[in-house]
């Protein structure tokens, strides 16, 4: 087998490892990639990353210990922000994402920790209590937050991977109330309609 063949085979292996979930949590540890792809696995990951970027995806490396690639976790994430209509097409409910957004904004603004009571209090300004609690539980189950025995919420593993905390706070501070005209221009009406039907 030529070098090029070997390389493209390894590229395909890396793509399968990163895109298909083989553990309870998504993502692959550095040592797993090293085991399957060889010690120069970062070269393959870089090559795959440039291929994925063309598709609007990218490989994100999350270090657990400083600069130790073997112990780091590799994920494939979107490289560009989603739009409201993308979100609905992907099967998310606007309400649920709003609840996650509220919860994460509170957690990030408070240094990664807040009480369940405080988060629920704000969520309840938008949703009925049972719904707020259900969304919170689901966000915890998905890994966006961790719940402690003392009823405190901590920033979860998924939030650390998927979220740019600085960007979140900046965009929350820049929040402007939605204008009906803008909404139409963005082509999000469909999403809005679906959302209002689903919620109400």
């Amino acid at each position, binding site marked *: 087998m030529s070098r090029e063949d070997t390389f493209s085979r390894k590229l395909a292996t890396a793509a399968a490892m990163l*895109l*298909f*979930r*083989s553990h309870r949590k*998504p*993502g692959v540890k550095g040592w797993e990639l090293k085991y399957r792809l060889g010690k120069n696995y970062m070269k393959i990951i870089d090559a795959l990353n440039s291929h994925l970027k063309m598709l609007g995806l*990218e490989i*994100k490396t999350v270090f657990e210990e400083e600069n130790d690639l073997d112990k780091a976790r590799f*994920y*494939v*994430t*979107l*490289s560009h*922000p*989603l*739009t*409201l209509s993308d*979100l609905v097409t992907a099967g998310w409910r*606007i309400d649920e*994402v*709003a609840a*996650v*957004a*509220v919860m*994460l*904004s*509170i957690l*990030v*603004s*408070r*240094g990664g*920790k*807040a*009480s369940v009571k405080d988060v629920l209090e*704000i969520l309840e*300004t*938008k949703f009925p209590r049972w719904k707020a609690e259900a969304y919170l539980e689901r966000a915890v189950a998905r890994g966006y937050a961790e719940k402690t025995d*003392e009823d*405190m919420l901590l920033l979860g593993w998924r939030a650390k*991977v*998927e*979220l*740019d*905390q*600085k*960007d*979140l*706070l*900046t*965009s*929350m*501070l*820049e*929040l*402007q*109330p*939605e204008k009906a005209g803008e*909404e139409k221009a963005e082509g*999000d009406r469909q999403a809005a309609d679906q*959302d209002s039907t689903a919620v109400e």
Partner: protein
Amino acid sequence: MSAEKKLMIAREELERIIEICENVEKRGLNPFTVNVKELLSKLRKTLEENPTLDHYVMDAETMYKIATLVALQHKWLKEKAKALFVDAQMIATRLIAMDKKSIVRAFLKAWRPIVSLEQMTPQRLRQGLEHFLSLPPRSGERACGWKVSQRDVEFVKARMPVEERLAERLKDLHEKLIKAFEEGGEVNYWEFVKGKNFEETFEKAYLLSFLITEGYVDVKRNPLKNEIRLIPRKEKAERKQPISLVIVIGGESG
């Protein structure tokens, strides 16, 4: 004031300080709301007034908690700097004031969800196969049984011997099983429990479950052949890691 009372007051004071520090840590409150300097001077004062071993121990613990609080202050500052010193209250106010869609739109700017696909792994396939093989067949091979309704269960229960007779029946069944084992080795479960009618089959299966749980009978299951074999013991064996085995009595009567 007596020395004992003084000591008690000092202890209470230290406990209060520990409690304050723990509260800040547990509830994620702003650690700068606590005046560390004041706490330290209180600590010095109580230490000077009560130079006892008990007090030293308590003092060390309090000191440790205050040190944790200082570490928390350091972390808090670091996180605030990371969060551009944004006031949490301001964010909360904005979240309350804004509509859901605006919040989502702002969130989307900072959110890059993980892309991952579900797939069937060899391990999952193996689990599925094991589960499939452990299911009883719907018809044909099964030796006995109908679908058992709650009413049937109640009916059979009513016909069950009273408690005193139960021990006797168990003993009989155990002896029968030992005899069958001595004659032909491991005993097929379905052949053994098969009775003249469904009630008798059910009763035998019910009694046998007691013997198995008690450790008088071992059960060997072969999921590939869908076979359950019984190995009786003359003496009770202790179950170190007991597991549950569900046997459905259904199908056709023998």
